[in-house]
């Protein structure tokens, strides 16, 4: 206890001392010009490590200024940011899961870069969902860093073995369920192959993979202000029912209920899953010889949508290298970085005007994923993380009751979500 208390208190102590010592710096310090080549520090989470590393490597090899990248385990990222902010030890630049950005902005962690963004010639072509979440009271604080979209992957070899058309993925959630059930019935007898899979004990997995079906059906999960939850009514309840039937039929694999998140994408590349929602960033990491179909997530009866996830990146409000930091940030949005670094590795682009490029044209699946950026949504809520991602938050309880427990508790648990959103 003492150590934990001390940890929390030292954080406060550091905050106090650095506030006392740095009185002369203030907000103006951010505009200090860098004399000679500068080295800026950057943090990113492990989930988007590959993309960040590629960008930093390309930037460092072509610029005098250098970026020193630190990768932090995804589960620890938010606490590390919080501790660093409290101690005024934030790096010059840090990426963050896009859904946490409104909260970070409200906490004052990012520098206002409205004027700098306004000067970019392609300012209107930046991924709209990411830009929306990085805007507060008309001021802009972040740029898109990586885009990670939820889509359905299907295993063409398993489809063929199960007698399904390997070139025809599901167009509705009901078709998805039928195809998963067929795979389970035909190939699942030995217990290795399963129709589908989902992260049943992982709040972030549920929102990333289930909510697009709600949006595709024309529904919403929250009010636009992100202060009222709408997760106790159709189409959300209909989506839960379809998935619950799949679980009850044992088409989802026995461990889906316990899956906490770290390994939920690990089963598809092993060839053990017929069809499941996956993050688009994993497409480039799939085994080379695996035949994978990609299709947008649909609602129960059709439509298509996606959860536009990934990271946004901003300059920390405590930096003393704002110009050098902006030089790096603006370069990551350039055609050179977007096409030659991101597109070359099958990543989704942060600029909609570059979606059709020489690399994406080689793979129609990448074109499809890029085209979803404009159709998908990124839900906005200032209290998103503590409500939906936190394992102790109220959303995971609701989702688990809906999937495995007593669905009649949904209205009461939905009220808990609203309460958390309004804290």
């Amino acid at each position, binding site marked *: *206890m003492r150590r934990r208390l001390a940890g929390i208190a030292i954080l406060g102590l550091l905050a106090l001392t650095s506030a006392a010592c740095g009185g002369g710096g203030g907000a103006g310090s951010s505009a200090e010009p860098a004399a000679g080549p500068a080295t800026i520090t950057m943090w990113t989470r492990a989930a988007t490590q590959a993309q960040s590393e590629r960008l930093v490597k390309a930037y460092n090899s072509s610029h005098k200024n250098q970026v020193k990248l630190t990768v932090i385990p995804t589960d620890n990222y938010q606490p590390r940011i919080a501790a660093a902010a409290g101690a005024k030890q934030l790096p010059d630049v840090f990426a963050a899961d896009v859904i946490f950005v409104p909260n970070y902005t409200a906490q004052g962690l990012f520098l206002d870069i409205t004027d700098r963004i306004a000067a970019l010639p392609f300012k209107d072509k930046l991924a709209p969902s990411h830009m929306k979440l990085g805007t507060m009271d008309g001021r802009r604080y972040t740029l898109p860093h990586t885009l990670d979209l939820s889509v359905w992957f299907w295993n063409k070899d398993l489809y063929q073995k199960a007698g399904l058309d390997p070139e025809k993925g599901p167009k509705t959630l009901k078709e998805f369920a039928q195809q998963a059930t067929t795979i389970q019935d035909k190939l699942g007898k030995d217990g290795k192959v399963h129709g589908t899979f989902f992260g049943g*004990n992982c709040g972030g997995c549920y929102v990333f993979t289930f909510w697009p079906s709600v949006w595709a059906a024309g529904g919403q999960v929250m009010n636009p202000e992100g202060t009222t939850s709408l997760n106790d009514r159709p189409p959300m309840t209909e989506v839960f029912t379809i998935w619950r039937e799949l679980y009850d039929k044992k088409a989802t694999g026995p461990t889906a209920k316990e899956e906490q998140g770290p390994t939920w994408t690990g089963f598809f590349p092993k060839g053990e899953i017929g069809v499941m929602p996956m993050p688009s960033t994993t497409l480039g990491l799939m085994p080379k010889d695996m035949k994978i179909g990609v299709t947008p997530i649909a609602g129960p009866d059709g439509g298509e949508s996606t959860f536009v996830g990934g990271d946004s990146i901003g300059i920390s409000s405590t930096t003393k290298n704002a110009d050098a930091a902006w030089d790096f940030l603006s370069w990551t949005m350039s055609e050179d970085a977007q096409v030659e670094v991101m597109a070359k590795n099958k990543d989704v682009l942060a600029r909609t005007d570059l979606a059709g490029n020489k690399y994406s044209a080689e793979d129609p699946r990448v074109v499809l994923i890029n085209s979803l950026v404009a159709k998908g949504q990124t839900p906005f809520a200032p209290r998103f993380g503590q409500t939906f991602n936190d394992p102790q938050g109220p959303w995971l309880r609701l989702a688990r009751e809906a999937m495995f427990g007593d669905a009649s508790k949904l209205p009461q648990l939905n009220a808990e979500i609203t309460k958390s959103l309004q804290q």
Partner: protein
Amino acid sequence: MTLTLTRAGRRAAHGAPPARWRGKKVQGWLYAAPTAVIVGVLFVVPLVLVVWMSLNRWPLLGPAHFNAPDNYARIADNPLFLDAVLFTLKYTAITTVLLSSVALGLALLVQERRPGVGFFRTAFFLPGAVGFAAAALLFYGMLNNDFGPVDPMLRALGITHEPVKWIGTPNMALFSTIALVLWRFAGFNMLILLTGLQAIPVEVYEAARSDGAGRRQIFTRITLPLLRPTLALMLILSVTGSLLAFDQFFIFTNGGPDNSTVSMVMVVYRDAFFRFDLGGAAALSVVLLVGLVGLNALMMRRLR
């Protein structure tokens, strides 16, 4: 007391302490200074700061605002913390009883010098050399239903037929965690008890035996009473450690399933680093600290 009176008498006689005494006094302060500085900087100052934080709305960046007693008043409305208090007490009670019993059993097994006893002492203590976070990850991997080796082994031996959901139900999650804690700490506690056992003079046992005492009588009338101070130390360490449980639940069960294994420190951590409510987390820490100090004082009084 005599010495103090004598010193006081001397001071009264001569008006001021002689230079030799003053030198000794300064020397004493100098010896104590490094520890005093460490205790001051690493404990007293943070403690005062935590109490001050708990009386304020304390944002990540920017000035704090005094809001006492809001942070404390909100604790009553925090069902997660109240549930965590009950869960942590339950976990502490079960763990302490089991850990004491297992550690005492192991200590009695390896108490006497016999051929090969060194091997067993080392084997029992060895898990204590594994970092606790690493041990929690190890159990997570070993008991994982997808890739862990324990399930296939149990099935191959015909002990189970279905995958065992080690952390899939509230009770299984609790008992799997207790198994982890026993594996990790039983050896260390055995070592503490072993020092206590070996401090009991052999003559006492011999005298008891010559008086015709049986093994059971020796255990209840000799071993346990003479082991009382060591047992008290072990109990205090175990109770304090269990009430502050964090790593095992944070890494192994992640508080699940369905918030059934959320410990008090996990709630503090969540409030500080996920909800950015530093003032609220500080208030919970202060409450926890006061409870812990009170409980330890009570235990020390009862076990002395």
